[in-house]
């Protein structure tokens, strides 16, 4: 990889020790295994401010994280964040991240550090209590979520 320009970055976000919060990391691992041309994959467990640097120069960034809204567990949400705005009713700060994802993205927006296209694939969490395993509903949603990320990656980004 010479320049990220024109490439897509997939960022899996989550705490591997907090139940469904690890789903973002699991989806990122699945994307890494696919080894798609033009796609880089990264996992962030703690310091979400780090994203403001690592996504610099990418045409498109796909964030994958657990979210909480009123939908059934395992629902896969696709949320366009390029405007730096959050839809009402979705709380992406349910996890244990020290700086919530919402703060990191709003700050990036204020500082002019948002990538041209930023999309969140959010998987509705059932439980983020201490423990390693995904809930059955979230586990069952993995193929849909991976397919959604993959579909986003297949759209060629202009440079």
């Amino acid at each position, binding site marked *: 990889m010479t320049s990220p320009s024109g490439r897509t970055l997939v960022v899996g976000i989550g705490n591997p020790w907090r139940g469904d919060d690890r789903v973002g990391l699991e989806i990122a691992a699945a994307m890494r295994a696919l080894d798609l041309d033009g796609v880089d994959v990264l996992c962030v467990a703690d310091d979400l401010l780090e994203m403001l640097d690592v996504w610099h120069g990418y045409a498109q960034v796909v964030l994958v994280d657990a979210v909480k809204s009123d939908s059934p567990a395992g629902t896969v949400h696709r949320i366009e964040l390029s405007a730096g705005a959050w839809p009402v009713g979705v709380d992406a700060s349910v996890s244990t991240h020290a700086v919530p994802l919402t703060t990191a993205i709003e*700050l990036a927006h204020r500082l002019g550090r948002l990538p041209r296209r930023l999309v969140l694939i959010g998987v509705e969490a059932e439980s983020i209590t201490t423990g390693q395993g995904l809930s059955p509903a979230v586990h069952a949603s993995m193929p849909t979520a991976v397919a959604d990320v993959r579909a986003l990656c297949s759209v060629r980004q202009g440079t």
Partner: protein
Amino acid sequence: MTERRSIRVERLARVEGEGALELVLSARGVEDVKLSIFEPPRFFEALLRGRRYDEAPDITARICGICPVAYQMSAVQAIEAALGVRVEAPVRALRRLMYCGEWLQSHALHVHMLHAPDFRGVHDVIELAAIDHEFVERGLRLKKAGNAILAVLGGRAIHPINVRVGGFHRAPDAAQLDALRGPLEAALADAIATVDAVAGFDFPDFDVDCEFVALRHPTEYPLNDGRIVSTRGIDVPVHEHAAWFAERQVPHSTALHAAVRDAGSYQVGPSARFSLNADRLTPEAAAAARRAGLEPPVTNPFRSIVVRAVEMVFACEEALAILATRPSPTRPAAPVLPHPGVGHAATEAPRGILHHTYAIDADGLIRSARIVPPTAQNQPRIEDDLRAFVTARLDQPDEALRKGCEQAVRNYDPCISCATHFLDVRILRR
């Protein structure tokens, strides 16, 4: 004022962890101040019992995502003291370099993102970025420089995994160390600019007379070791810590409260370190402190933000000085042979002294562990500050008092998760 009133902050923002603050005010003055820490205790000291001595650095690192290096350093040094392990000078230098990285990360976050919004009259860092883009960008750059050090020495920027009893699992090579110099030179200029910026903030008119406690080393600004000293005459080796400082339980907090035996609350952290060690600062840090008008002792707790900025200058200079010597250990770690022993260590975490004690048995298993984190030590001091701060401002409306109290708590950059052992502010007027 005739009515009793209460001021509450149900959940304090811009601190690490979960806590609340409640003040009860009446015609007689401030009746009660409670800094409640309701984050559940995590029983780390108990779960260390029966584990192998070499597991302590990685287990205790998990106490805090902001200062894992401090936990690792206090843990390895206490165990090395128990087992009579001597580390070679380049290993010590690399540990000190790593600690500089953590100070940069932690102070950059607190100064630019958590505390500065109070002084600039904005709600949070997002609003701050709208009025002072460069200040926030500078904070991100400084934090990134700290991350870079941690990535080289610790194996990754958060929750480092390369520290072990006796040294490191793997020592960095010269090329990795050399690559840190450019970013740190830029960070030094950024840190100096931040000292100059925060020195111009408006500080509330407030001074306290308290005992400062910090480490003191014969030649260095304190990081990894030194004697425990205070502004009221304590000067003891770290293994005498328990003889001089006591911890007690209070009903409103899952964190223990610490006090100087037969005396009272005391303060650890940047203002304490500077007040006791200003003569040990590196040249640019000392010059920046002078320009900022800082003199020991720092009696206005609100000026701690300036001290943190000065300590960022120190961390950059110290890191660059260490890098110039290109520390190259003959082996990454000294050999360790477990045997029964008791060891103590204290290091200067970003928020102040972090004291660890371990007793190890013949099989190398930990028989007992005692961890005294900085926020548990500062908690009674924070309550004392709040009582004095509010007493002088009883005529102010609740909202102004609530804001002032939250800012006063943030003077200490409390890490409630570490202390769980934090924050909601309540003011009750009766």
